[in-house]
């Protein structure tokens, strides 16, 4: 059986268990202790955003660049947390309330690293992944735009580290 890619942009429904197996079965870089902690994060389509009731969302990505952003985040994580192993999938297309838009899993020997790296990953995804979100309401829709973050912006990275509490 082909192994699941650790990093992906996909129209398929996200499968957390598959992502966990993907990082759990993978050898940890230093090979010294084994996996003791797996921290996961799921981002879901929330029913209300900024006070508006959401009917559905549509995610659009510049896929090749999004994958490169994920690879960059993966490298940043290994650099800061050498024993951590990341899996990161983002769904695109139309999603309804309660569906999972992003799934992040980090396995590591100890829990502090797994928690910090998973938080760091989602902050960096929000900062640098070229993925846009269109919210549909009962009577209209809007593209949600945010700040543009240069992937090389050191201040943005620092902010992600700060939120990851390291």
């Amino acid at each position, binding site marked *: 059986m082909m192994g699941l890619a650790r990093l992906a942009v996909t129209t398929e429904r996200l499968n957390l268990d598959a992502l966990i197996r993907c990082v759990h079965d993978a050898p940890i870089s230093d090979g010294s202790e084994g996996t003791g902690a797996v921290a996961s994060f799921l*981002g879901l389509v*929330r029913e209300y*955003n*900024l006070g508006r009731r959401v009917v559905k969302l549509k995610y*659009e990505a*510049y896929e*090749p*660049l999004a994958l*490169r952003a994920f690879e960059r985040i993966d490298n940043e994580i290994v650099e800061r947390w050498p024993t951590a192993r990341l899996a990161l999938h983002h769904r695109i297309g139309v999603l309804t309330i309660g569906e999972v838009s992003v799934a992040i899993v980090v396995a590591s020997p100890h829990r502090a690293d797994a928690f910090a790296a998973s938080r760091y990953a989602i902050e960096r995804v*929000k*900062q*640098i*992944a*070229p*993925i*846009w*979100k*269109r919210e549909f309401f009962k009577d209209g829709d809007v*593209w*949600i*735009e*945010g*700040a*543009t*973050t*240069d*992937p090389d912006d050191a201040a943005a990275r620092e902010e992600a580290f700060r939120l990851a509490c390291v």
Partner: protein
Amino acid sequence: MRVNIRVFARLRDIVGAAELDRDVPTGTTAQRIWDDLVEEFPDISTYSGSISTAVNAEYAKMETVLDDGDEVAFLPPVSGGELPG
């Protein structure tokens, strides 16, 4: 030479297509492609201060000089998810 232009999200809505092919002179920069696009679709001009650019799926500067067959993408600000809190 010919370049492939890619636009996303609301830019794509305004332009009415995800991709455009344009014949441009040798030495054309990403900035020049954008400026021509603004002329063609004036509603996108509000993005002139906030777009990012990628050439061949790598982030690039607006001053980047394009080659024949290059793919130049104009990226509106990413969604950034929820507001703080």
